[in-house]
């Protein structure tokens, strides 16, 4: 063998060996990614398939990963259970109402904060205060809140839950809408002012219609928050205003007996979120970071 064909100890770019090493690395990377994706996706797959399994398959050992027998009984039985259909109605009413009020009040406040008619100190102070309310864990105000609601005789009512969710959604909506309002070119506002629009007219007829995509996204996040919330719902409701998350957490006590029904309810709970998430994909990052990173 002549010296010219000798390969260096470390394969250099362009040699066959170098490519093989790169290929092996890439394959390993793909395999690892696939493994992680399976773990990430599996619970959702398991939830949906289990909701259609016959009882024998649902709790079989070894587990039935790919079911061959399907049934709708779990859904039928779930709705036969006392309180489940009422809980769905409660959840829908509470989530829609709180989303509506949060979005309206929040975008009004955000508009006032985005425009600089108030002094810088006031706006900055308000924004920091709003941020701080978002930092506190909900459980820290749970006890006084419970006592207040009880004293007002609002326990187990939709009103109490709606007020709670509006309060928790507001900081989020204000921050997100603030970003959307600030992204708008100031010329639009100026033109409206020249045309003689009042503050309210400008907001109602010019700014709000333009901010509609932002408003839609923000309301989706507000909706999902109210739809999923467990702590305050379990604390403030007992029977009449009980929401779906409370029903789901109640399945723990007899989880293994009614596994199919629980997954049926869980699957139904995903549907509105799924529809909304598909629509809001583009703005996902902005929503998840509270508006701090523009996705």
């Amino acid at each position, binding site marked *: 063998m002549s010296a010219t064909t000798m390969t260096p100890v470390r394969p250099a770019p362009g040699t066959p060996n170098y490519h093989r090493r790169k290929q092996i690395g890439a394959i390993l990377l793909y395999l690892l*990614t696939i493994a992680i*994706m399976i773990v*990430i*996706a*599996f*619970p*959702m797959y*398991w*939830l949906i398939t289990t909701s259609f399994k016959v009882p024998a398959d649902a*709790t079989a050992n070894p587990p039935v990963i790919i079911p061959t027998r399907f049934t709708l009984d779990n859904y039928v039985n779930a709705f036969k259970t006392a309180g489940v259909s009422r809980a769905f109605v409660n959840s829908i009413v509470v989530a829609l109402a709180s989303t509506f009020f949060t979005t309206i009040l929040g975008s*009004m*406040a955000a508009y*006032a904060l985005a*425009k*600089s*008619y*108030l002094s810088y100190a006031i706006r*900055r102070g308000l924004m920091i*205060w709003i941020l701080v309310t978002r*930092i*506190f*864990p909900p*459980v*820290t105000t*749970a*006890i*006084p809140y419970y*006592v*207040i609601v009880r004293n007002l005789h609002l326990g187990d009512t939709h009103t109490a839950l709606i007020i709670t969710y*509006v*309060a928790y959604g507001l900081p989020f909506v204000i*921050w997100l809408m603030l*970003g959307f309002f*600030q992204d708008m070119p*100031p010329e639009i*506002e*100026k033109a409206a*002012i*020249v045309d003689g629009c009042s*503050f309210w007219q400008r*907001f109602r007829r010019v700014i709000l219609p333009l901010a509609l995509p932002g408003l839609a996204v923000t309301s989706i996040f507000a909706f999902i928050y109210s739809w*999923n919330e*467990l*702590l305050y719902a379990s604390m403030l409701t007992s029977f009449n205003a009980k929401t779906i*998350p409370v029903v*789901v*957490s109640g*399945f723990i006590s007899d*989880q*293994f007996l009614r596994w199919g029904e629980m997954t049926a309810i*869980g699957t139904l*709970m995903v549907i509105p979120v799924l529809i909304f*998430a598909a629509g809001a994909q583009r703005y*996902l*990052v902005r929503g*998840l970071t509270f508006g*701090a*990173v*523009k*996705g």
Partner: protein
Amino acid sequence: MTAITPEITQAQSPPPVLKQSHRGEKIGSAIFLAPAVAFLLLTSVYPLIYSLWLSFHSWNMTIPNSQPVWIGTRNYERLWDDPDFWNSVQVTLIFVLVAVTVEFIFGMGLALLATSRIRAMGWIRTIMLFPLMLAPVVAGVLWRTLFQSSYGVINWAIGLVGIPAQEWLGSPSQALPAVIAVEVWQNLPVVTFILAAGIQSLPLDLYKAAQVDGASSWQIFRRITLPLLKPVILVLLLLRIMDAFKVFDIVFTMTYGGPGQTTELMSMLIYKTGFKFFQVGQASAMSWVFLVAIFIISLFFIWRLDKE
């Protein structure tokens, strides 16, 4: 606060046309702000002050017509000697630190992968939406059954590679890691999406220059990506740490703080003290210690952000 607050600048003075109606604008702004501010005062400030007041009282709210009794700082003194409280502090710190660290490492890896040459990116994105779509309460109940020791899927899966079945949620040493794993599972997509968005917004020419200079992938990551991404990383860590302190649903559904008190996060302990043992004053004192601690931690991050 620059990175975390949408820009508010003093330079943005109202346009000149406004001069004559400036008063009207101010009044309009105030009216627009008033409902939200009033709402927040009533629902977050008032309960907080009430909670502070309660923390200096002893009160069992289940006894009809009973009144809170002033006991000074005794609730706080009792916390100092309370082993349950210190256990919970420890569990909470481990939970938050481990969960956020693991989320960050895996999230960074996936974000780098997602922004590099990999195909099927659309698929990865869609799959990563799944954990976000499940309500935490559903996720908790679901994982509880996956971790189930006699016929749970996880024990079956590790059995395939020859690992004996584990107790998981029934074991004092495995319950906390299991709960942390579920927290990581649910929030890894958030971290990945944010980091990927951050990486995509970095200037491309720097990378090209580095490649021309023959920098290795690690050098590019260490010397370009990481420093440029610092503000995003700080915001992300602040948000994730604050959210990890709030976790309640998955612990409530998976372990209820057990076995023993090995997974009793502070939120769980406050909940139990207030709503299971009805020691309202004690729970309020815990809440305030918790609040102050979280406040100090977030101030640290905000201060770091301000420096950037």
